[in-house]
């Protein structure tokens, strides 16, 4: 069933690519602009790494957050609002493979997006190779799972696709520019740093950047994301008892 649903979601996604394209193109275009304006030299504001080493991991997480916070809630809330989930469940197709299929498709999209970003950084902006591919891969997967779970939870809480779009966009932008997608943390005001510390995205960025630069595990980042993942999954399970 999962294979059938995933294949169906891929086909549907290709027929109506707007939201996915936004989630892919927006971080990519911003990344390109930033790398062009900051050049290629290591910079103390970026913790002594090159702008590409700072921004490529941050924007990989950015594309994960955009997909998880915007694409998934809009899509799933529309399914819920229009009775697609009920239609599927009534025919013996439980909610979990539907959600798993969405997550797989999201993972596919963000992998493609991140690969393009890495290729871009590598080609012209002195992107270094990750110190630990294992930590980077694990951080990438955990962030994908976490943001997809948050997206599913949002969709389960919000009554309409429109509401999901508004809330998803607000959450995404609020997080994105203070959690690594905007100026580097070192030059952010203290108040903004505190807010960023309360949002999950900064933790995902930390895990990925540390893994990229030094190969260390950022344990705090892993634990916070795991906690968000569990909480969001619990909310979704609770809310999707009736669809």
């Amino acid at each position, binding site marked *: 069933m999962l294979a059938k649903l995933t294949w169906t979601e891929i086909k*549907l996604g290709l027929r109506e690519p707007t939201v996915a394209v936004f989630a892919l193109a927006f971080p990519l275009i911003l990344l390109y602009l930033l790398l062009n304006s900051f050049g290629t030299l290591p910079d103390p504001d970026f913790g002594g790494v090159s702008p590409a080493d700072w921004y490529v991991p941050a924007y990989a997480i950015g594309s994960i957050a955009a997909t998880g916070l915007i694409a998934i809630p809009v899509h799933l809330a529309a399914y819920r609002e229009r009775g697609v989930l009920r239609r599927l469940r*009534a025919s013996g197709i439980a909610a979990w493979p539907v959600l798993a299929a969405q997550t797989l498709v999201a993972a596919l999209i963000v992998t493609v997006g991140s690969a393009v970003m890495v290729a871009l950084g590598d080609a012209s902006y002195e992107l270094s190779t990750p110190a630990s591919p294992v930590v980077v891969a694990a951080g990438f997967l955990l962030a994908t799972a976490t943001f997809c779970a948050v997206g599913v939870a949002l969709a389960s809480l919000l009554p309409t696709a429109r509401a999901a779009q508004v809330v998803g966009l607000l959450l995404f932008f609020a997080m994105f520019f203070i959690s690594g997608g905007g100026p580097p943390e070192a030059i952010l005001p203290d108040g903004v740093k505190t807010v960023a510390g309360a949002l999950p995205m900064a933790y995902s960025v930390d895990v990925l950047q540390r893994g990229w630069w030094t190969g260390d595990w950022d344990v705090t980042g892993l634990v916070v994301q795991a906690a968000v993942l569990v909480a969001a999954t619990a909310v979704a399970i609770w809310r999707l008892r*009736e669809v």
Partner: protein
Amino acid sequence: MTVIEVAGLHRSYGDQVAVEDVGLEVRAGEIFGLLGPNGAGKTTTVECLQGLRRRDRGQVRVLGLDPERDGDRLRRRIGAQLQSSALPDRLRVGEALWLFARDGDGGAPLDQLGRRWGLERLWRRPFAKLSGGEQQRLFIALALVNRPELVFFDELTTGLDPQARRATWDLVRQVRDDGATVVLVTHFMEEAELLCDRVAIVDQGRVVATGTPSELIGRGDAGQRVSFTWPGADAAWLSQLEGVERVTRRADAVEVMGTGPLAVRVAAALAGRGVAPADFRTHHPDLEDVFLALTGRDLRA
């Protein structure tokens, strides 16, 4: 054999009570109707039977299973067309059938099913481009694709034109004749009367009567009605007759409602007074009259 057993089913949405003490028994191989006005709680009831809604209390067994505890297992054995549901706009008819068909269940090949429900012409059409009737045919095909033992149809013919409605009724009979049990939710009296082997009349979250359509109509709750033209009718005198409950006059047209052998009594009394209207007519009660008699309200209201 009993396929569905329900006792004391209760469900509210916040402080709005939708289902208040519903009891039902559906037998294998019958078309069982749930008839009642909008808002009676029919949809909520069948959603509880399918485990799509949780019940607040009550006992429910469907195909020997508890729909809440064994929902996924149960739903693999039943088919459903829901009152309000949809498919993704760009999903095509053929893809929908492929997605919903479980492999290796020995179900009918998809193209055969498509032909049977007249969908082969629409095979590549996206869901959003289907007419109401075509969507309904697709939903019926999806409900039947895995050869269910029990099928739920909720407001199957609402929004269809009379011709499509009649065609759909034939399809429902076919499903029953193929051996499945059918639960049909409707607010059309005519549909219940023509199609259902047995009917439960639902009002304000309760079952007010259950039986075959002819049993329900013959129970005598349903008022008898006669009408005739009598210029200057003596309405007061008519109301005194035995069995008469109500007399209404609109210009010269008189309508008398009551119970028992009403037509014979009224005719005899009129003849005794030398009144012989040429258009004396008796009306056979239908399920709508039964509903009116049981609830004091109009089914169409």
